């Protein structure tokens, strides 16, 4: 059932390797890696492509620990707390040990989330099959309110970005009556099917980053670190994990849970698990000074995110984070609809995802753990030489999506500029992208619901499953309001 041969292995190794490079270079992320490597998957079937894409995902999340530990600069937002304890360890000559602890914790977090993905996705999808258009609409509404709930201290902007994404996704023809809306006359042909997902997401997550780096002068950091250590007591040993079992499970579970919630980034998972590790620690004062506990919490949580974020995507069709939102693009390219029927209709692909995720985690461990001294050198790669190549890949990816349409390259540039402006006015891009992906479905299910009820909005309040989802929506809004107030009070 699972097609796995030399080609798939090469794809997984390539994905993990490139992902580690992207993760290790501050400013470059797993999302960016997947976005610009999507064009490479045009030539392969989905199952083979998944090994590359999941490899990029796992490698991209894991690679962030290298600069976090060696330079105290998180390579990805998800490794934000890794440096809190990793860097002090590196400063006292335990860099290699810290890296190896981080890599091992990453593997455990990744495998934990894989088990969660395997266990929770099929029952959730089974439940979702019973959903009518009403519940499907409410679930998308819930996803948008969760985005707001977790945009800490930035609730209104988060929800604004989500709905703005919905509005932009509605540009073009409406499938039911084929009438155009919100399209200027001179773009009637180009925008008939709206803005394409791939140029939008590459623009938001790759080109925006290049504009931001260009603004700051694209400075090359002169990275210096020492990985040579002859003191045996400062070397990695499996004993370093003694007493970390509960911390590992708790942090992996937090990471997985945070991954399930739509729109929540790895940084939130990493921060929450770190603060929980501190709360439960017998010696909380040691966290932040080079404690194994803090490092384990951060790294197991951010890799726990990988499988978690796939759960809502594969069961409900709702991406858990910006990286899985990009994966939607890969499924769309292959003509596969993610959602409640995904597992039933694509059993082979479902098993391939599980297998590929396991293989990619193992490859990540092997390629990072043993040759870490050499792998760590990737942080010295000059970004100013990589970005021009990324621009080239972005253009190819955007152009090829509809078999050659220069309008999509203009879309890429447009959303690169929009993403850059968003970053300046504090509008988060991830909720915008999730709103953009879900917008058309939100409209379809809303219209289908009122069609079925003869126009009455009461249909949204009459079914018991709907009541449950309304309860979740209200709870997430209340949580958002209280959490937002708390965050503002803390800021003050």
């Amino acid at each position, binding site marked *: 059932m699972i097609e796995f041969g030399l080609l798939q292995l090469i794809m997984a190794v390539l994905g993990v390797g490139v992902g580690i490079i992207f993760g290790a270079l501050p400013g470059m992320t797993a999302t960016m890696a997947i976005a610009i490597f999507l*064009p*490479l998957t*045009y*030539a392969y079937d989905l199952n083979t492509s998944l090994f590359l894409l999941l490899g990029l995902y796992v490698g991209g999340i894991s690679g962030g620990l290298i600069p976090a530990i060696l330079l105290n600069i998180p390579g990805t937002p998800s490794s934000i707390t890794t440096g809190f304890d990793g860097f002090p360890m590196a400063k006292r000559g335990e860099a290699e040990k810290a890296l190896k602890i981080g890599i091992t914790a990453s593997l455990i977090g990744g495998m934990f989330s894989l088990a969660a993905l395997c266990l929770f996705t099929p029952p959730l999808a089974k439940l979702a099959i019973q959903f009518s258009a009403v519940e499907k609409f409410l679930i998308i509404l819930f996803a948008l309110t969760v985005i707001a709930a977790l945009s800490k201290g930035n609730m*209104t*902007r988060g929800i*604004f970005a989500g*709905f*703005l994404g*919905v*509005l932009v996704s*509605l540009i073009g*023809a*409406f499938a*039911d*009556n084929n*009438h*155009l*809306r*919100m399209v200027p006359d001179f773009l009637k042909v180009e925008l008939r099917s709206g803005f394409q997902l791939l140029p939008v997401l590459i623009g938001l997550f790759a*080109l925006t980053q*290049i*504009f931001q780096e*260009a*603004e*700051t*002068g*694209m400075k090359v950091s002169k990275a210096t670190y020492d990985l040579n250590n002859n003191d045996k007591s400062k070397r990695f040993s499996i004993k370093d994990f003694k007493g970390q079992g509960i911390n590992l499970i708790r942090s992996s579970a937090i990471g997985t849970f945070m991954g399930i919630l739509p729109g929540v980034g790895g940084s939130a998972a990493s921060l929450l698990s770190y603060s929980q590790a501190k709360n439960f620690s017998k010696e909380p004062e040691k966290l932040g000074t080079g404690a194994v506990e803090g490092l384990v919490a951060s790294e197991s949580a951010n890799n726990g995110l990988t499988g978690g974020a796939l759960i809502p995507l594969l069961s409900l069709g709702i991406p858990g984070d910006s990286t899985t939102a990009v994966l939607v693009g890969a499924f769309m390219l292959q003509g596969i609809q993610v959602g409640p029927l995904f597992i039933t209709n694509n059993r082979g692909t479902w098993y391939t995802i599980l297998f590929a995720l396991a293989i990619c985690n193992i490859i990540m461990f092997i390629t990072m753990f043993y040759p870490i001294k050499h792998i760590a050198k990737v942080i010295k790669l*000059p970004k*100013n*030489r990589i*970005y*021009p*190549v990324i*621009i*080239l*890949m972005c*253009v*190819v990816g955007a*152009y*090829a999506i509809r078999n*050659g349409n*220069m309008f999509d*390259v*203009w879309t890429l*540039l447009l959303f*690169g*500029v929009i993403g850059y402006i968003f970053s*300046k006015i504090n509008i988060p891009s991830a909720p915008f992208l999730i709103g953009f992906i879900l917008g058309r479905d*939100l*409209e379809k299910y*809303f*219209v289908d619901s*009122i*069609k079925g009820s*003869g*126009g*009455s*909005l*009461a249909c949204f309040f009459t079914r018991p499953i709907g009541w449950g989802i309304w309860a979740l929506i209200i709870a997430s809004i209340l949580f958002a309001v209280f959490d937002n107030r708390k965050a503002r009070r803390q800021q003050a």
Partner: protein
Amino acid sequence: MLTINYMPSTSHWIVPPIIMGILVILLFVMSIQRFIKTKKENQPFIQLKNKRFFEENWDKLKLFGTLVLFILYIFAMDVLGFLIASIVFIFLFNVLFAGVMQLEEIPKAFKEKTYFKNEGFCSVCISLLIAIIFSVGIWFLFGEVFSITLP
């Protein structure tokens, strides 16, 4: 309970006005929030004096250079085709990102015949190599091996 008059011919305009309405409400809420915040802090509602859009000491040449080069690159692909346009523009992006000052070193390197001992000359050569290798590589891999449509 509210009802919506569903007519197939106008159904494409049911959801967009609702979303626009939500966005207007959210903008209003954000304005209120800002009003309360600025009132508490005794500051003006619109404050442009100390506001800066760009980072401190931002690199005008690199930021606008990137934007202009990208626009020209799109036009050039139509005129020159993917391969030649990519070699030219990826080289220019490389020179821009690595620092245009390196170009000043070229005449010096020729005059003093220092060539590869000259840092600027080496940097330009690296830019050219990257542009050629990656443009040809991607053109060959995507266009020839995978038969993916290129500009």
